[in-house]
C-alpha cells in the first residue's frame, strides 16, 4: 500500500468551493437583502475566486505528488460506529484523484469566469453560482474520498446539484420536468450503488478502497463479486449516461449552457468512469462483466453518434456526442485499458467543454436561439468563436496534433491490444469514430458556414467568454501530447507514467496491427467523414439515410418505451391500489365491522320485545336447560 503523508491540502481543496457556496447562498443574499438584488459580477467573481484558489491548491497537491509523496491522506471522522456497522470518512489525494481535481477545478474556474458574462443579464444570479460551487464541492468530495461511502456522498451530491441547476429557471415547467427526470434516473442508478455497498459490506466488512483492494486482490472469483460489480456498473450507467439510463442527459440541456459544459460534459458524467478506474482491481475479478461493459460502451457510442446526426438543437447534438464519447471511454474500461480511459476522459473534458462554451457563446450571440437551422453563416460575425469551435471539432474528430487524435486512437488500438478486445469491437468503434467526424462537421456547417438564416445581427462575445475559450482551445490542441504512444518516443506517455502507481497497466498482448497503423487508419476515417459530412450538410441540413433518420430522430423510441414500460404502469398500479384496496377495502373495513356489530345488535333486540310472558319463558327455559344438563349428567 502506498505510503501516504498526512496533509491538510486535500481538505482545503475541498472546503474552498463549500465556502463559495456558503457565501453565495447565505452571506451575500442576506447582505444584499434577497437573492434578486445580488449583482452577477460580485457573485460570479467571488465564486470564481474560490474555484481559482482551489485550483491553485490542486496544482500544489500535484506538485507534492510529483515531488515524490505517493498520496496525501486526511482522515475526517467516524461517520457511524454502531454495533457491526463501522463507517468513517477520509480524504485521499493520489495521482488519479489529483488528476481529477485538476480537471474539476481547472475547467470549473474557466467555466465560472465564462458564466459571469454569460449570466450577466439574469437577476438573482447568486443562486446560480452557489449551486455551481456546491456542485464542485460535491464532485471534489467524490474524487477525493477514500471509501465507497464517501464516493456515494459525492455521487448523490452531484445528482442533487444537477437537479438544482437544470431547473434553475424553474418557472418554466419543461425545465422542472427535465430536472426531475434527471434526478430520478440517477436515483435508480444510486439504488444499485447502495445495494452494491450493502453487499460488499456484508461480505468484506469494509467500504474503504485500500482495504477492499487489498482484501480482494488475493481472493478467487466469488459469485458475489460479479453481483457487486454488476450493481456498480448499473449505477455508473445512471450517472455516466450509458445505454439503459442515459435518457436524462439530452433533456438536461434545459439548464444554462455553462451547466451543460461543466456538469454534463466535463465532470459529473465522468464519475462512472472514475469509479471503474478507481476500483479496477475489483472489476478485473469479474471479466465476463467487463466485456459486457465494453459492448454496452460501443453500442452507446453508436447510438449517441447516430442520434446526434439528426439533431437540430446545437446543445442536444453536443449532448448526444457526449453520450457517444462516454461510450468510447467505457469501451476502454471494458477491454481493461484503464489509463487510456482516463486519458480520453481528460481530453474529452477539454474539447467538449470548449465545444459547449463555444455553443454557449453562439447562443449568447443569437440571443437565445438554439436551433442550428435558424443559424448559419456566423463565421464572419463571430470570428473568435468560429476559430475555437474549429479547434474543438478538429479535436473531437481526431485530426492529428489535436488531443482527440491521441486519446481516441489509443482506445481504438486498445480494442485490439487488450485481452478482451476483438476485431468486431474495433470495427464498430471505427464506425462510431466515423459518425463522430460526421456530426462534428454538421455542427460547423450548419452554424458557421453556408447561407445565413439568422435574422438578427449577432455580435462577438465579450473577452470574459472568449478568454476561457482560448485557454480551452490551447488545452484541446496540446492536451494530446501528454499521452504520445510508447512506440513513437521513449517514455513519451506522461499520463501513464503519472497514473501507473495507482492504475496498473493490465497485460496487453501484441496486437495484430501496430499502433501507428491504427492511428493512420483512424485519421483516414475522420478525414473521409469530415469531407463527406461537409458535402452533405452544405446542401440541406436534413440527412436522408435510407429511412433510418426517422428512427434516429425519434431517439429509437426509447423515451416512449420507458414511459410505456415504467411510468404509466406505475401510475396505473397506484390508482388501482388506491381505488381497489385502499378505498374499496381498507377504509371500509372499519365500517363493515361497525355495521356487522350493529346488525347483530338489532337482531338481538328482537328478543327484548317487552312482553312479560316472553321474559318468564326465557327464565324458565334457562332453568329447565340447566336442570336437564344436571339430570343427564347425573345419569350417564
Amino acid at each position, binding site marked *: 500500500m502506498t505510503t501516504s503523508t498526512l496533509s491538510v491540502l486535500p481538505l482545503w481543496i475541498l472546503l474552498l468551493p463549500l465556502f463559495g457556496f456558503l457565501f453565495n447562498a447565505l452571506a451575500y443574499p442576506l447582505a444584499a437583502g434577497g437573492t434578486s438584488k445580488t449583482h452577477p459580477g460580485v457573485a460570479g467573481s467571488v465564486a470564481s475566486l474560490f474555484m481559482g484558489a482551489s485550483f491553485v491548491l490542486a496544482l500544489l497537491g500535484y506538485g507534492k505528488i510529483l515531488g515524490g509523496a505517493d498520496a496525501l491522506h486526511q482522515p475526517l471522522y467516524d461517520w457511524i460506529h454502531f454495533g457491526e456497522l463501522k463507517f468513517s470518512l477520509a480524504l485521499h489525494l493520489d495521482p488519479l484523484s489529483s488528476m481529477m481535481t485538476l480537471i474539476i477545478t481547472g475547467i470549473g474556474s474557466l467555466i465560472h469566469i465564462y458564466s459571469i458574462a454569460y449570466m450577466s443579464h439574469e437577476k438573482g444570479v447568486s443562486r446560480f453560482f452557489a449551486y455551481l460551487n456546491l456542485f464542485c464541492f460535491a464532485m471534489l468530495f467524490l474524487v477525493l474520498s477514500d471509501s465507497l461511502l464517501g464516493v456515494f456522498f459525492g455521487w448523490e451530491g452531484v445528482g442533487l446539484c444537477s437537479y438544482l441547476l437544470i431547473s434553475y429557471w424553474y418557472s418554466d415547467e419543461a425545465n422542472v420536468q427535465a430536472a426531475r427526470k434527471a434526478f430520478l434516473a440517477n436515483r435508480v442508478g444510486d439504488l444499485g450503488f447502495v445495494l452494491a455497498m450493502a453487499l460488499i459490506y456484508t461480505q468484506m466488512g469494509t467500504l474503504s478502497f485500500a482495504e477492499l483492494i487489498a482484501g480482494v486482490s488475493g481472493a478467487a472469483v466469488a459469485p458475489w463479486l460479479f453481483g457487486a460489480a454488476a450493481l456498480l456498473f448499473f449505477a455508473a450507467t445512471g450517472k455516466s449516461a450509458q445505454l439503459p439510463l442515459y435518457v436524462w442527459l439530452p433533456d438536461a440541456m434545459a439548464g444554462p449552457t455553462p451547466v451543460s459544459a461543466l456538469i454534463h460534459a466535463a465532470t459529473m458524467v465522468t464519475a462512472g468512469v472514475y469509479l471503474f478506474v478507481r476500483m479496477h482491481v475489483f472489476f478485473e475479478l469479474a471479466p465476463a462483466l467487463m466485456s459486457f461493459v465494453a459492448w454496452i460502451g460501443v453500442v452507446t457510442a453508436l447510438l449517441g453518434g447516430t442520434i446526434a446526426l439528426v439533431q437540430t438543437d446545437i446543445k442536444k447534438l453536443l449532448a448526444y456526442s457526449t453520450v457517444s464519447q462516454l461510450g468510447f471511454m467505457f469501451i476502454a474500461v471494458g477491454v481493461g485499458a484503464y489509463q487510456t480511459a482516463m486519458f480520453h476522459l481528460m481530453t474529452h473534458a477539454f474539447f467538449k467543454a470548449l465545444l459547449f462554451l463555444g455553443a454557449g457563446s453562439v447562443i449568447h450571440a443569437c440571443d437565445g436561439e438554439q436551433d442550428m437551422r435558424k443559424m448559419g453563416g456566423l463565421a464572419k460575425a463571430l470570428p473568435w468563436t468560429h476559430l475555437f469551435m474549429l479547434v474543438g471539432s478538429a479535436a473531437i474528430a481526431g485530426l492529428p496534433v489535436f488531443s482527440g487524435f491521441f486519446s481516441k486512437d489509443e482506445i481504438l488500438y486498445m480494442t485490439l491490444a487488450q485481452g478482451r478486445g476483438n476485431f468486431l469491437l474495433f470495427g464498430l468503434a471505427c464506425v462510431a469514430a466515423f459518425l463522430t467526424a460526421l456530426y462534428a462537421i454538421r455542427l460547423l456547417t450548419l452554424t458557421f458556414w453556408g447561407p445565413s438564416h439568422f435574422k438578427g445581427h449577432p455580435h462577438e462575445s465579450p473577452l470574459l467568454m472568449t478568454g476561457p475559450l482560448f485557454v480551452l482551445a490551447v488545452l484541446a490542441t496540446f492536451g494530446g501530447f501528454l499521452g504520445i504512444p510508447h512506440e513513437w518516443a521513449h517514455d513519451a506517455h506522461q499520463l501513464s507514467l503519472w497514473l501507473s502507481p495507482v492504475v496498473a497497466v493490465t497485460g496487453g498482448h501484441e496486437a495484430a496491427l501496430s499502433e501507428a497503423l491504427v492511428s493512420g487508419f483512424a485519421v483516414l476515417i475522420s478525414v473521409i467523414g469530415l469531407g463527406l459530412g461537409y458535402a452533405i450538410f452544405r446542401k440541406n441540413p436534413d440527412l436522408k439515410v435510407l429511412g433510418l433518420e426517422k428512427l434516429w430522430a425519434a431517439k429509437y423510441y426509447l423515451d416512449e418505451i420507458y414511459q410505456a414500460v415504467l411510468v404509466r404502469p406505475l401510475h396505473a398500479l397506484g390508482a388501482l391500489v388506491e381505488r381497489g384496496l385502499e378505498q374499496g377495502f381498507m377504509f371500509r373495513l372499519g365500517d363493515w365491522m361497525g355495521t356487522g356489530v350493529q346488525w*347483530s345488535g338489532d337482531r*338481538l*333486540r328482537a328478543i*327484548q320485545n317487552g312482553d312479560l310472558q316472553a321474559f318468564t319463558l326465557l327464565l324458565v327455559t*334457562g332453568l329447565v336447560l340447566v336442570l336437564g*344438563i344436571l339430570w343427564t349428567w347425573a345419569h350417564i
Partner: protein
Amino acid sequence: MSFQDLFPVDSLSVLQWQAMFPLLVLGAASVLGLLVSPIPRAGRAFAFASVSGGALLSLIGLSFMSFQDPVSVLDGVLYFDRSSQVFSFVILAVTLGCCLLSVGFDKREHLVAELYPLMGFSAVGMIGLVSSRHLMMLFISLELMSLAVYVLVSMQRRSAEAAEAGLKYFLLGGAASSVFLFGVTLLYGTTGTLELSALAQSAQGLWQGQVPLLFALGLCLIAVGFLFKVGAFPFHSWVPDVYTGASTPVTGFMISGVKLAAVGLMLRLGAEIFALPGLLESHGALSQVLSVVTALTLIVGSLLGLVQNNVKRMLAYSTIAHTGYLLLGFMALTVGGQAAAADAIASYSVIYAVMNLGCFAVLTLVNPEGHDDLMLKDLAGLGRSRPVLAFALSVFLLSMAGIPPTAGFFGKYYLFLSAVSSGHIALTVLAALASVVSAAFYIKPLVVMYMDQPQDGVSAPSPRWFGAGLVVAITLVLTVVLGMLPAWVSHLL
C-alpha cells in the same frame, strides 16, 4: 315475670350490639322517616333528614368498627366480617348518595316523600343480605330489599311506564325469589342445616366423590336466584325495561345499590359453597354452563347497548355487560379456585358502584322535565352549555370503558388478571372484545355532547340542585383518584 323468662333470649354481648349498630340505626331512621313523611309541606324535608341522618350515623359508626375476627349473632344469622363491612359501607354511602340525589328532583317530578324511607328499608335489606350466613336470613333480606324497590320503581303514579316496570320487576322478582327459596329447601333437606358454614361441612361429609343430585339441584336453583338479581343472561330481560321505566334516582339506586348487594350475595355464596373444592371442578357440566352464561351476558350486554339511543336503556345494558365481567371473576373464584378473585370482584364492584352513582347523578341533573326519557340527542351541545357536567359524565363513561387514568381501568385489569390466572384465556379475550364494543357506545354520548350542536328546541333550564351536584363532585374525584392510586381500593377483603 321478668323480661328474661317472658322472652328467654340469651342477651347479646356488647360486641354484637356494636356490630348490629348500623342495621338498627338505619332501620329506626327509616321508620321515623315513614312516620314523618305524610306531614304536609315539610314532610319531604323531614323524611330526607331522618333517613340520610340515619345513614350518615351508621356510616360513621361502621367506619370505626374493625372486624379482624368476625362477630356472629345467633350463630350465623348475622355474620359481620371484613367483606360485610366493606359492602355495607358502600351500600350506606350509595343510599346516602341517592337520598342526596333525589332532593329537588322528587319535588319537580312529584314523587311522594316515602321515597327516602323506602330507600332506607331497602338499604337495611341490603346490609342484611351482605352480612348473613343463614340461608333464610338471606332470603328475608333479599325480599325486604326487593319489595321496597318494587314500590320505589312503580312510585310515579301518573307514568304508565313506571307502573309497567314495577309490574315486570315484581312478577319476575317474585318468581325468581321463590325459585331461590325452593333451592334453599332442597339444600336444607339434603344437609339438615341452613347455616352456610355448617352446610358446607356437612355437604363435604355427604359425598365422597359423587355430589348428591338433590344438593346439586338446590345449588342450581339458588344460582338462578342470584343470577336473576345480578342480571345475568337468561334472567336479564327485566333489566332494561325496569331501569328505563323507573325514575332516574331510583334507577341510580338500583344500578349501584341493589346490584352491589346482589354481587355481595353472589360473592358470599360463591366463596362459601360454590368454591368448595371438588364441587364445580368435578361438575364439568355446571362449570361449562356458567362459562356459557358469562359469555352470553357479555355479548348481550355489549351488543344490545350499541343499538340504543335512550341513555338510561343504554346504561342498563352496560350494567349487564359489567355483570359479565363480574361473572368472569366469579368463574375465576369458583371454577378456577382463585381465592384472590374474591378481592378482584369486591374492588371492581366498589368502583362500579361509584362510577354508576356519579353517572346517574349527572343524568338526574340533565333529565328533561316530566317523565319522558333522556334520549342521546337531548345531550347535544352539553359540552358547551354545562361543561362541568359534560366533563364529569365523560369521565364516568370513559371509566366504564376502562380507559387508564380512571378507576375503571384498574378494576378491569384486576379482574382480567384473576380470570387469566384461573386459565380462562378465551373468556378474557371475549371480555376484551366486549369492552371494545361497549367502548363504542360509551363514547356515543361523548360524541353527541362535544361534537353536535344543541338542537334549536329550548333546552330545559338546568336545575341547580345542591345535593346532586355534591354527589357528582364526590364520585368524580373518587373515580379519578382511585384511578391514580388504586392501592386504596385493592385488597379490601
